[in-house]
């Protein structure tokens, strides 16, 4: 059977046209997807810029009141915390007594009242970081080592530290027993009584920095000694070491390392973590 020429050519051209149409439609679909994707990307970027702007434009503590800003701050802060902060404060933010890095989740603050503003100031300027504005009033003195500085007899001549340490080893242990007592932990009664007396003495003057009720003074970075929260460890030996050898903990200033947005985000994130994820 012979097929007419015009019919043969029409039958052979149909699949080719279908393939061509399929390619064109695929191309249009890709263009469509790229356009939608690009639009979404632009929108996401602009949205992020808006959040970043609002995060900084708000006063520090107001920023933490906005759930959207808190989420945004967490998304910015998490990788920064992991990179710069976790080495001392731990990935879980619960601190490290070995380096005296405080737990950031317990709501207990050495400096300030734990507001976003105070947290931000500490991140900006650090603690004992050797710069202006850093939090630096005094160290915890080394009472087992700290002697009395005196000029040996002749005014005007070079002085030396004389007179031995402010506290001997037994006295330091007595103070430790007193600390255990006021934190409702097992203690030795007689030693604790001696420790309480020593804590009131002018030469040791615990209460000058830690307040008359020993509940701490955040202006000095002097911790509350009555709530059993210890940045440098709370075992009797840890407490002994803190009194005997003193403490001089520092935190670097991040003002020249991180951007203002990153610092604000960290402050909001840490503030949120210290309030159980809320503000």
């Amino acid at each position: 059977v012979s097929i007419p020429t015009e019919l043969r050519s029409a039958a052979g051209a149909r699949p080719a046209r279908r393939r061509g149409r399929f390619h064109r439609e695929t191309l249009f679909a890709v263009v469509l997807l790229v356009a939608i994707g690009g639009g979404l990307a632009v929108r996401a970027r602009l949205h992020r810029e808006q959040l970043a702007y609002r995060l900084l434009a708000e006063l520090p503590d107001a920023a933490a009141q906005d759930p959207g800003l808190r989420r945004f701050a967490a998304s910015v802060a998490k990788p920064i915390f992991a990179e710069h902060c976790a080495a001392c404060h731990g990935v879980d933010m619960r601190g490290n007594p070995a380096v005296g890095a405080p737990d950031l989740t317990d709501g207990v603050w050495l400096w300030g009242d734990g507001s976003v503003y105070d947290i931000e100031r500490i991140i900006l300027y650090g603690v004992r970081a050797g710069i202006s504005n850093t939090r630096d009033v005094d160290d915890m003195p080394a009472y087992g080592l700290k002697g009395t500085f005196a000029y040996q007899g002749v005014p005007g001549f070079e002085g030396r530290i004389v007179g031995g340490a402010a506290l001997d080893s037994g006295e330091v242990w007595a103070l430790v027993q007193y600390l255990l007592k006021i934190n409702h932990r097992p203690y030795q009664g007689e030693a604790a009584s001696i420790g309480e007396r020593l804590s009131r003495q002018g030469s040791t003057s615990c209460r000058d920095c830690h307040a008359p009720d020993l509940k701490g003074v955040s202006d000095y970075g002097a911790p509350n000694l009555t709530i059993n929260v210890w940045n440098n460890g709370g075992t009797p030996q840890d407490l002994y070491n803190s009194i005997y050898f003193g403490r001089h903990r520092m935190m670097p200033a991040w003002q020249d390392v991180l951007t203002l947005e990153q610092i604000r985000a960290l402050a909001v994130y840490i503030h949120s973590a210290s309030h159980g994820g809320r503000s």
Partner: protein
Amino acid sequence: MSARGLLNPSRRRIALSVVGVVLGLALAATGLFQRRGPPRQTAVPPGYAALVNGRGVLMSDFISETQTETEKPFGETTAAERARVLRQMIDEELLVQRALALDLPETATEVRTALADAVDAQAAAPVLAEQPTEAALFAYYQKHRARYESYGSMQLRDLVLHVGGFQNADQTFSQADADAIEAVYQLRSGASVEHVAEHFGLVDSGREGRGAELDFAAKLHLGSQLYEIAQRMSTGQVSDPIAASDGVHVLVMEVRRAPAVEDFPTARAQVYSDYRQALVRQAERANLGILRGHAQILVTPGLSE
């Protein structure tokens, strides 16, 4: 366009293209024109209270300064108080910028000192956080034991036979020397100082202090020549005659406590202080080492540092 028209492939292509473009533009536009978008021409960036010639006054610093100045929480301060503080901060920023324009860090000694001290303090801050252990302190003490030598003290008599018209003495040096030798002999034999002094005409030089003196004070009073001899004497010892410009001296050491290296427990407080200071100096030197490593320093021929 009818549903039948959409079945036409060419029309369908155009329709899909239009839909895609419109959808993409719409999504972008929702971001662009949202009501709370960041201002395109913001004079002061967020996080700052003011810009002074392009330099920012941090909002955090402004809050801190306002609270310090007014002794009130920032939320309780008035607009007038905030304005006053901000004005002060802007003024200060202007002065700082002027100081830099005048190159004060290069020309004003106080500014240079303050800057150098600030850099030292920054370098020292991390090392001061290091907690010295007892072992570290003891190792430092062992390495620097000589530093922990206590001051010696001495209580002595400095007797002198004046010569050559000094204080109206008419004897010659050789006569005085001979008398001094005899006086020393008698003193060493147990004769009292008063008896020997009266017999040979020895008088107190007036150089020694009253009672026991620390070594550095005795050195000031006696002078180097006599002190060098006195510091090697022990309690009860009588020196040989010592020829000096004003006559012949004889030293009688009544009580001598020689300097001694303090044991570690006694010296620990000073060791602790010195140890920390050493760390600070070490950090400062290391910092300078880095700075020098990155600096180009040219010294004029004939000079060295």
